[in-house]
Structure formats: structure tokens, C-alpha cells
């Protein structure tokens, strides 16, 4: 499917208007695009203004300058109901909906489509059912919201926005309260929506791993720098992510794609079985070592299998370990 620009912002200034005509500018000049069929992840430290950006793009608060266009039409020309058919949101706000069932909440997503009294027709019921299915919560249709866990509640909110049938979906930290499995489930679901239904998905997240893994595009927002955008791998390789996360004691490692602390690294050679070597390297990095190509100048390990690891010390002695834990212990005793 051809990728279209669904949302674009030109010279967008976001921030707040204060009393007395003053403005608090969070960002003066943003140029952004959202494409159909793509999942865009918005990353940034707390206070960088992610929520402000999302709220401005959804017209929950006014921009300070510049223009926003949705489907080619300036956002301010949209009526409230037109906008409700175009952009759906999932936020972190608490609701007062404890007393209604899952089905009733998801059916609220049909509001922009139903008549004056909110009567649901057969087609509406089909869509609601499909939305419940898509997030996997049909079995709890008649449960009250107050009886759900945080993760289930989040899924219900996503089901609601699915029922709204908007081409653009904006989510503010949708994976925040979810457990590991649910997080991945949600991201997979969002990707599926993007690919299968050609939707534009924009979400803000602190989940760096999943963003890199699942995002078609990353937006890096920080207070003092212009917004960086691009495919995750490009941003890793051109050191954008590294400089983005550079903070006292934190470093983004472009080889592993992980954040770590830049302690002085003692090199340890790693070779052997691919899988074991990868995870041995992970453990070594955590302990402050630098996994490197084996050399006679420093200690090296040879991963024969996950339960058999040879340690060749720099002074020539050889040790054996039956697990990565044991290997780490040996290294700590010997090298220090």
C-alpha cells in the first residue's frame, strides 16, 4: 500500500500561553510527518514535552505557532465531530468509568458514528466485537471496569479507540503499567493495525527496547535540541541515540542497543557458540567488562555450550565454568 502522509506539522511551536500574554515555549520549530501504515515512537526524557506535543497534535491544546495538517486539511478547520472520526487517543488519564462494563466502554468508541441517542446498530455491534477480539478481552465483556487489572484496563481503552475507527491513533505511554507479556502484545497489536489496516500510529514510550524493535520511525524529543527523526537503526548508527541519552552515568551502547553505565571497561575476549557468546557478552557488559575479540593480552572465555565455558586467564592458566554465573565469579576472583 502506498504510504501517505496523514499528519504533518510545519514550523510548529508548542508550549503554553501564560497570563499577561507571555508564552512558555517548549519547542519553537518542529517539522514532523506521520505516515499511514507506520508505527512512530516518540521518545524523550520526562519534561521534554512529549505530552505537550501529543496534546497539541490532537488539538487538546493550541499550538503557539506554525501549522498542523491532518489528511491534508488544516487542523483548525476540523469540527469536533470530524476530528473525532480522524484521530483517536489513548491517554494516561484516570476515568470515572468504574461502574460500566467493558462492552459499554468500548461501545463509547462508536460515539462519533452513532445518532443522537447513541443507539447501536448491528454494524456497530460487529465492530465492537471485532475490537474486543483484537485486544483479546472478549471473555471479560460483561465485567465492570473497576474489576479489571491495570493491563486489562489499558487493553479496553485500546479496544475503544479501535472501535472509533480512526485512521490516526495517538497513544500516550500505552505500555506504562503493563507486564512484560502485555507490553509485547500491545506493540504487536499496534504494528498489526498499522500494517493490516493502514493506520498511522503515534505513541510515546519509555520502552526503548520495544521502540527500537517495533517502531518504523522514532522521534527523539529533548528540551534543548531540535527533534531528531528517523528509522531506529539509522539513529543508532549515526550516534543520534547515543548523544540523545548521554547523561551523567548513562550511555547508549550502539553495538548492543542497550543503555549502560560507562565505567572503565576491562576487556574480556569472547568466542564460541553464537547464542552463549551473545548472552555471556550481555553478562560481562553488566559487570563492567568489555566483550572483545580474544587476545593473549587479556583474559578470554570460550563458550563451548551454555553449560561449558572455558576461561583462559592472561597469565596462561585455564579455568572451567558450568554456567555463566560461575564464569562471572571466577573472573571477579581472579581479575580483581
Amino acid at each position: 500500500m502506498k504510504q501517505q502522509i496523514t499528519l504533518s506539522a510545519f514550523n510548529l511551536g508548542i508550549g503554553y500561553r501564560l497570563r499577561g500574554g507571555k508564552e512558555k515555549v517548549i519547542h519553537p520549530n518542529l517539522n514532523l510527518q506521520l505516515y499511514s501504515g507506520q508505527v512512530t515512537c516518540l521518545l524523550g526524557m520526562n519534561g521534554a514535552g512529549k505530552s505537550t506535543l501529543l496534546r497539541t497534535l490532537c488539538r487538546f491544546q493550541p499550538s503557539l505557532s506554525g501549522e498542523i495538517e491532518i489528511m491534508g486539511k488544516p487542523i483548525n478547520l476540523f469540527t469536533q465531530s470530524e476530528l473525532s472520526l480522524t484521530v483517536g487517543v489513548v491517554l494516561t488519564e484516570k476515568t470515572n468509568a468504574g461502574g460500566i462494563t467493558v462492552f459499554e466502554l468500548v461501545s463509547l468508541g462508536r460515539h462519533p458514528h452513532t445518532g443522537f441517542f447513541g443507539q447501536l446498530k448491528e454494524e456497530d455491534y460487529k465492530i465492537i466485537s471485532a475490537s474486543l477480539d483484537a485486544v483479546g478481552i472478549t471473555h471479560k465483556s460483561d465485567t465492570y471496569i473497576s474489576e479489571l487489572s491495570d493491563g486489562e484496563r489499558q487493553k479496553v481503552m485500546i479496544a475503544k479507540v479501535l472501535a472509533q475507527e480512526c485512521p490516526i491513533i495517538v497513544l500516550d505511554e500505552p505500555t506504562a503499567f503493563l507486564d512484560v507479556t502485555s507490553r509485547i502484545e500491545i506493540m504487536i497489536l499496534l504494528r498489526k493495525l498499522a500494517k493490516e489496516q493502514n493506520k498511522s500510529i503515534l505513541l510515546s514510550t519509555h520502552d526503548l527496547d520495544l521502540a527500537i524493535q517495533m517502531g518504523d520511525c522514532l522521534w527523539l524529543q529533548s528540551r534543548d535540541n531540535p527533534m531528531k527523526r528517523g528509522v531506529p537503526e539509522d539513529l543508532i548508527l549515526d550516534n543520534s541515540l547515543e548523544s540523545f541519552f548521554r547523561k551523567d552515568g548513562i550511555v547508549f551502547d550502539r553495538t548492543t542497543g542497550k543503555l549502560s553505565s560507562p565505567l572503565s571497561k576491562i576487556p574480556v575476549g569472547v568466542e564460541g557458540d553464537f547464542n552463549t557468546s551473545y548472552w555471556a557478552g550481555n553478562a560481562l557488559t553488566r559487570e563492567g567488562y568489555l566483550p572483545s575479540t580474544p587476545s593473549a593480552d587479556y583474559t578470554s572465555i570460550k563458550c563451548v555450550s551454555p553449560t561449558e565455558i572455558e576461561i583462559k586467564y592472561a597469565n596462561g592458566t585455564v579455568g572451567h565454568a558450568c554456567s555463566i554465573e560461575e564464569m562471572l565469579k571466577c573472573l571477579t576472583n581472579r581479575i580483581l
Partner: protein
Amino acid sequence: MLSLRIMKKQIFLGIILLLLFACNLAYGSLSIPLKSVIEILFGSFEGKQTWAQIVLQSRLPQAVTALLAGSSLAISGLLLQTLFKNPLAGPSILGISDGANLGVAIAMIYFSVGSYVTTILSAFAGAAVVLIIIIYFSKKVQNNVMFLIIGIMMGYLASSVISILNYHASADKVHQYVMWGMGDFSGVSLEKLPYFASFAIAGLILSLLLIKPLNALLLGETYAANLGVKIKSTRILILLCTGLLTATATAFCGPISFIGLAVPHIARLTLGSSNHKQLVPVTILAGGCVALLCNLLTVVPGSNSVLPLNAITPIIGAPIIIYVIVNRKNIQYFN
């Protein structure tokens, strides 16, 4: 299924409403045999004329007034509780009934006019003034909690002016105002009933039309806006509806406490749901039931005296509120 259960509950409430209505016709300070009451209603009665006059000119309009006033106040309370996401909101909290009180106090005490028509008009005027001020502030203050506080302050302002008026007034005038403040369903005669009924019914119909946005508001104003609800105009409509219902009930019946606060909770507890599609009709029914019950209880069996209405309503209302507060962890609409 769920909807069948709900329908059963609604029918059950409807039956209780009719029963209470019938009780209010059959039971009063004066003992009139049930058979006679029925004959009077069907026009085949041939006994004491005073009995017919009492049933048709006193008890009947009083029961209808109680029903409509109870429903009006209950819906007022529900609208405010949903709009402000605050289960302790009620018609008195925004100062609208205090405004009505102030209007009547000014008319009775300051201008010494206590006629039927002026009392009603001044109550409406007072409520309208406070309502306009409230709506003005609703545009300026986005935060609901802050807005509620402004409403409470308006109520205090009105009360303080009333205190000043009372302080300088003669005992007679104070007494007259205090009597008005006791609450009274008997003040609307058969002739005046159409006026009262049209205002009340208009307000109730408006509330039915607001069901869709009220449900959206359960998610909060941001989500509701995203679902296409025009927040500012919806807020104003809800306030207008509340204002109309509260002002009508207060103007014709005096200030009545607790019904607006407690009945929405009774409705939610009965239904077990916050879905306004069922909640609005059930609140209307429950409001009528509670008011009719309170009206019955003003007649002390065995004695000739009547108790003031506002002494009875807290007896019903306060335990409900306490129950809700104590049990809130187990009540789903609280979480």
C-alpha cells in the same frame, strides 16, 4: 442477560413508584377509608364532600408535586455528579439553591412581599443569577475541582447575605422565611400544577437528551472531546438543565435537602451500573419514590401534627451517603 435484569429493576421501581403514589393519596393526617379514596378518584363517591376535596385538591397535587420535585432534584444531582466526577456533588453544592433562597429572602425580608407569585419569581431570579455567574466561571476555569470550589463559595456568599437579612429582620419575617425553608410539597395547588409540571418536565426531557454526552463524560473531558463531544457547550447545557430543575423545585417547594445528593447513589446501587442510558430513567423513578416516601413520613401516625419536610429527608438521605462512603471500596462506580 444484563439488559433483562436491568429492565426488571426498572419495572420494579416503576411499580414501587405507583404504590407510593397511591399511598400518598390514601394516607394523610385525616383517616379516609381506602374504598372512599378509590371512589373519589373514579368519580363515584357520594359521601363527605370534604373528603373529596382533600383527596383531589390537597393530596393529589401534593403527590404529583412530590414526584416531580423528587425527580428534578435527583436528576440535578446526577448531572452534577457526572459532570464533576464527584460523588458528593449535589444541587446545593453549586450555590444554585442558595441563590434561590437568597432571592426569596430578599423578597420576603427586605421587600416584605411574601405572596405566592413573588416567592416563585424571586426564587427563580436568585437561582438564575447564581447560574449565570457559575456558567461565566465555567468558561474561565477549566479545572473541575476549582470550579466546584467557586460554586461552594457562591453558596457561602448567598448564605451570608441571608444571615445579614435575617439578623436585622423582625421575628415575623424571619419566621416566614424559616417556614419557607422547611420545604413543602403542599404549596402547589391543582391550578398552579401545570406551571410547575411544565418546567420540571422540560428539565427532565432535556436530561434524557443528554444521555449520550453524559456517558462520554464518564471517561473524563479529554476523552469525551476526542469522541466528538463539544465540551464547553455540553457543560453549559448540563448546568442549564441542573439550574432549571433545581430552580423549579426550590421555587415551588422551598429548599429541599439531600434528595439531589443521595438519590443518584440509590439509583447506581440499585442498577449496579453508571451507564446513563439506564441511570437517568432509574434516577427519575427513584427520585420520585424517595420524595413520595418522605412526604408520607411527614404525617406522624396518631398525632395531628405534621413534621417539616427538611427534617425527614436527611433521615433517608444521610444513611445512604454514609453507607456509600463506608463501602466505597466494594462499590464499582467508585473505582
